[in-house]
């Protein structure tokens, strides 16, 4: 499975270490909140709201350089909008990968 990386953040910062650190702090802060809301909605079978959460999480997936995962998240978002949960397992595995990665930053 592909692994997260900070290439995008480095390309954005132009060497501005303070910005890199600030953005990592924001992501570490925001990601768990978005993930929790997603799990609440998926557990309650609120698929449309869960799709909104996936949409939001997609940005962080792309920021962390996870290109294939981004595609999976997009397909899963569409599945939720159509009222089914195909790719849920794959998507949640991406969330786990990111969670583990952020813990070590």
């Amino acid at each position, binding site marked *: 499975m592909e692994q997260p990386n900070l290439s995008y953040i480095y390309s954005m910062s132009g060497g501005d270490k303070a910005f890199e650190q600030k*953005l990592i702090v924001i992501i570490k802060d925001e990601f768990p909140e978005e993930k929790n809301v997603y799990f609440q909605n998926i557990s309650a079978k609120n698929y449309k709201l869960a799709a909104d959460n996936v949409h939001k999480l997609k*940005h962080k997936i792309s920021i962390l350089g996870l290109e294939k995962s981004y595609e999976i998240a997009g397909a899963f978002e569409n599945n939720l*909008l159509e009222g089914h949960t195909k790719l849920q397992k794959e998507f949640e595995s991406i969330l786990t990968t990111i969670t583990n990665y952020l813990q070590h930053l």
Partner: protein
Amino acid sequence: MNCIIIDDEATARAIIRQLCSNIDSLNVLEEFPNALQAIKYLNQNEIDLIFLDIHMPDFTGFDFIETVKNPPKIILTTSDANFAIQAFEYDCIVDYLVKPITPERFQKAIQKAKTTSGKTATYNPLSEKIETASGNDLYVNIDRRLIKIDIPSIYLVEAKGDYIQVKTEAKNYTVHSTLKKIEEKLPDDLFLKIHRSYIINVHEIIDIEDNSVLIKKNVIPVSRSNKPELMKRLNLL
């Protein structure tokens, strides 16, 4: 240019602010996690440019544009390229950035904002532009998104109550519409209504037996009144 950033995601706001900081002519005055707060601010402040996220809960970027009187120039930001066609229905929108935004793409957008004359938002009905966007594409509205479907890839359309299900090789789409409406949009040479609940792509027929046709793995009934037209369309030996 005095700017504001509207995005419910703090990460996105931080990135846009950083991108703006690299361009001398941009001055970020404020950022907002929701569009409603920004409307109040706009009533009291002169702004040249707004970076506006589309996908926000409760009040979307498009809701915002339609609410604000004489909006300034707007650069839309989104994680979803499917909104692009809707974006260009508004004259105030100068560009459309798909996240994650790169510095190069951002600079191009700012260049466009500088060279485009300021116009107020005028909303035009979507339908005409959708039809002319491309002869092979059909845009369907699903949960406030316009999703592009390649028309020849559609093999079956099925009516299901207030919805229709559009089936393609890659994916099925459930759309709030009627069979009659989609029938008008599909080319006659490819598609045929064979039952009050079904339109088929005639090129996808595998076989015909009595009053049913096989399309992929779907056995579709053919109504008595539609059968003569179906038979006419076949290259019978």
